[in-house]
C-alpha cells in the first residue's frame, strides 16, 4: 500500500540503513581462524593427521607415541601463543590508529617494545661486563625465561611513564612524540651495549630475540601470558563506544560527552598491556599491528569499532597462525625468522589490497 503510493508519486521510499554487525563476515573470520589453528597443529617438521591430533587433544593415545609430545607440548602452546599475540597486536594497533588518528600508528608507537628491547639488551649484552652475573653465560641459562622477565620489566617501566603522561598531557600527539623519543633513547642505549659487548654470541642472542618467535612460550608461561592478554582485550572491548566517538577527533568526542582524558588513559593502558605482553613473550613482532586493522577496514568498508574490534581480533590471530606456519617450513626442520616472514608475506598482500580496493575508498587520511 505504502509502496504503491510511492510508486504513484514517482519517488522511492527511503530505505534507512541499519548498523548491522556484519555477522556473516565475522563468522567467516572465525572459521578461517579455526582452520589456521588446526593447520598449525597438523603441519610442522612431521605431519600429524588431523584425526590423530583430535585423539591427542582428547587425551587418547595416537598411532605414534612421540606425536603426543609434539602436539601437546610444542604445537598447541605455540598455536595458542600465536592466536593470542596476533589478536592482541591487531587490537592494540587499531586502538593506536584511532586514538592518534594516524594510519601509520602501530602497537609500539608508545615505546613499549623499545622498553622491552632495552630490558633484553641489558640482560643479554651486559652480563659479561658485570662479572658476577657470569652464571648467565652458561649458555643454557640464557634462556627464554630470563629474557621474558627482562622484557616485561622494560615494557612495564615505559608503560608507567606513558600512563603518567597520559593523565596530564592535553593532546594525544604529545604521547606519540614521547613514545618516539623513548624509542630513540632505548635504541641509542642498545647500540652502546652492542658496541661494547664482549662476546659476539651475546649479540647474536639479542638479534635472535629481535627476530620474534611464538615457539618459546611454555605452558607455564602461558599461565601469565594468556590472562594478561585477556585483561587487555576486555578493556579494549569495553572501550568500543569511546573509540567510535574518537573517530571524529578529541574535540568532537568531548562535545559528545566523552571524558577524553579518562578514555585515553584506558586505551593506552590496554594497548600497552597487549603490546608489552606480546613483546615480552614473543619478541618485537612487527607488521601485524599496523597491517591487520587496515586490512579489516578495507575488507569490511567500515570504521565502526563494533565491527572492527572483533574482526581485527579474529583476523589478527589468523594472520599470526598462518605466518608462523610458513616460518616453520612444513616438512623441514629449518625455522625462518618470524619477523622476516611476516613482512615478506604481509607487505605484498597489503600493497595488493590497497591498490585493488574500489575507487573512492582513499586512504585513511584522505
Amino acid at each position, binding site marked *: 500500500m505504502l509502496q504503491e503510493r510511492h510508486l504513484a508519486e514517482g519517488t522511492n521510499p527511503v530505505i534507512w540503513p541499519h*548498523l548491522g554487525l556484519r555477522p556473516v563476515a565475522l563468522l567467516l573470520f572465525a572459521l578461517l581462524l579455526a582452520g589456521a589453528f588446526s593447520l598449525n597443529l597438523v603441519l610442522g617438521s612431521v605431519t600429524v593427521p588431523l584425526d590423530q591430533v583430535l585423539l591427542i587433544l582428547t587425551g587418547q593415545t595416537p598411532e605414534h607415541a612421540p606425536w603426543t609430545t609434539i602436539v601437546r607440548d610444542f604445537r598447541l602452546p605455540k598455536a595458542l601463543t600465536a592466536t593470542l599475540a596476533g589478536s592482541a597486536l591487531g587490537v592494540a594497533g587499531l586502538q593506536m590508529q584511532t586514538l592518534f588518528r594516524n594510519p601509520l600508528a602501530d602497537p609500539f608507537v608508545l615505546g613499549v617494545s623499545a622498553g622491552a628491547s632495552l630490558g633484553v639488551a641489558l640482560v643479554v649484552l651486559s652480563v659479561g661486563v658485570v662479572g658476577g652475573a657470569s652464571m648467565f653465560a652458561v649458555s643454557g641459562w640464557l634462556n627464554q625465561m630470563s629474557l621474558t622477565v627482562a622484557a616485561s620489566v622494560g615494557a612495564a617501566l615505559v608503560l608507567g611513564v606513558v600512563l603518567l603522561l597520559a593523565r596530564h598531557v592535553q593532546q594525544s600527539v604529545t604521547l606519540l612524540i614521547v613514545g618516539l623519543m623513548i624509542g630513540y633513547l632505548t635504541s641509542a642505549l642498545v647500540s652502546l651495549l652492542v658496541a661494547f659487548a664482549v662476546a659476539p654470541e651475546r649479540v647474536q642472542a639479542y638479534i635472535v630475540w629481535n627476530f620474534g618467535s611464538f615457539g618459546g612460550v611454555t605452558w607455564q608461561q602461558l599461565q601469565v601470558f594468556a590472562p594478561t592478554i585477556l585483561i587487555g582485550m576486555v578493556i579494549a572491548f569495553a572501550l568500543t563506544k569511546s573509540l567510535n566517538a574518537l573517530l571524529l577527533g578529541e574535540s568532537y568526542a568531548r*562535545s*559528545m560527552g566523552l571524558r577524553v582524558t579518562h578514555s585515553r588513559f584506558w586505551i593506552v593502558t590496554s594497548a600497552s598491556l597487549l603490546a608489552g605482553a606480546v613483546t615480552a613473550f614473543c619478541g618485537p613482532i612487527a607488521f601485524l599491528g599496523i597491517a591487520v586493522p587496515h586490512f579489516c577496514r578495507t575488507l569490511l568498508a567500515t*570504521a565502526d569499532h563494533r565491527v572492527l574490534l572483533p574482526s581485527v581480533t579474529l583476523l589478527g590471530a589468523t594472520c599470526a597462525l598462518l605466518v608462523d606456519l610458513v616460518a616453520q617450513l612444513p616438512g623441514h626442520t629449518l625455522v625462518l625468522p618470524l619477523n622476516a616472514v611476516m613482512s615478506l608475506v604481509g607487505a605484498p598482500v597489503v600493497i595488493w589490497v590497497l591498490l585493488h580496493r574500489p575507487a*573512492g575508498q582513499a586512504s*585513511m587520511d584522505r
Partner: protein
Amino acid sequence: MHTQGMLTTQDLCIGYAVRKRPPRIVAANLELTIHAGDLICLLGPNGIGKSTLLRTITGMQPTLSGAVLLDGVDLATLAPRDLARRLSLVLTERVDVGQLSVYALVSLGRHPYTDWLGRLTPQDEHIVQQSLEAVDAVSLAHRPFHQLSDGERQRVLLARALAQQPRLLVLDEPTAFLDLPRRIALMHLLRQLAHSGERAILLSTHDLDLALRYADVLWLMQRAGTVHVGAPEDLILNGAFATTFHHEGVIFDPATGAFQVNAATTAPVCLRGQGLPAHWTTHALERAGFCVVRQPDTSADVVIDITPGDHGLTWGISQAGQTYTVSSLYDLVALLRAMRANAPTPPQSPSAGCPELSYPSHQPPDEPASAQSTAEYR
C-alpha cells in the same frame, strides 16, 4: 518580551590561565543571554577571542571567573554526558573518519544517550532519521562521508549535532569553506532550525552580509573585550557596527550595510544617470576606491554621464573641458584611474565630498597598514 533566557552568563570572565603568571583575560564582565528560538551570530575582527568565547560558553574551556548557566544550571557542575545532551557543536576542524557512512556518522550524535556499546534503540534511529531529514540529507544516508562535497559535509555534521537533541547548538564558522549559494542555503537552514524549535543556535562567522540578513541577534565582539548585543539593525543605528570595525582599515557604510575600504582622500566624482546603470556604475566606482556624488559639486572634478546608445550603454567622462567616451565599466574605471595617476588632485577634506564616508581615518599605532595606503594600492 522574553522572561528568562535559556543560557545566561553571570559576570563571565574568559581567557587563559597561565601557570605562575596572571591569567590572560580575553573578555570580562560578560552578561550575555540566549533565548530559545533565536539565531545568534557572533561577529568580530580576527583574533579577538570569538573562539574563546564559544569554547567557554560550551564548557570546553573553564571560565576564569563567573559562570555560564544553561537552564539555570552551572555548566561547570554538569557531568560531560548531561552537558552533551544539552549542548552540541559543529567545529571548524576537518573531520576525517575514514570509511564511515553518513548514517553511522550522524548516529554518533546519539553517543550521550546510548548504552555502553553504543547500540541504537528504535527511538535513537528515529531521531537520527529526523536529523537527516531536517538538513535535507536523507539521500546521502548510504554514502561514505569522505566522498561528500564541503557543503554536504557541513549539512551532515549539522545533522550529527542535531541528533544530540541540544538546547543550544554552537557552530564555529560554519560558512567558512562554502561557496555563496551554499552559505545562503546553510544560513537559511540554520534560521529555520532555530525558529522551529525549543533550541537556539549560536554561530561565529566573518560573513557580515549574511549575518545581517539572517541573524535574530548579533553579538559584536570588540577589541576592548566587550560584546555589543542586539538585533542587527539596532547595532547599525546605534553605531556599534561602525565603531567595532573602523580600526580595521575598513569603513562600515550604514546606508548599504556593507563595508568599504577607506577611500576618504580621493576627490569625489559626480555621476549623472538613473536606474540600474547608475546603481552599478556607483558600485564599480566605489569598488575602485572612488567616492561618488550624485549632485554637481564644486569638489567633484570629474563628471560622468550615462547615455543609452544603439549598441548598449556608453559613459561620457568630462574633466576640465575634455570629454572621453567609453563603452564598458571596466574601461571607465581604468580611464579614471589613469587620470588620477597622471594628475593627482590634492587631498580634500573628506567630509566635504562624501558625507556618508566621513569617518576620521586615524589608525591605532600598532597597525601600520593604514587606510590611505590601502586605497592608493588599489
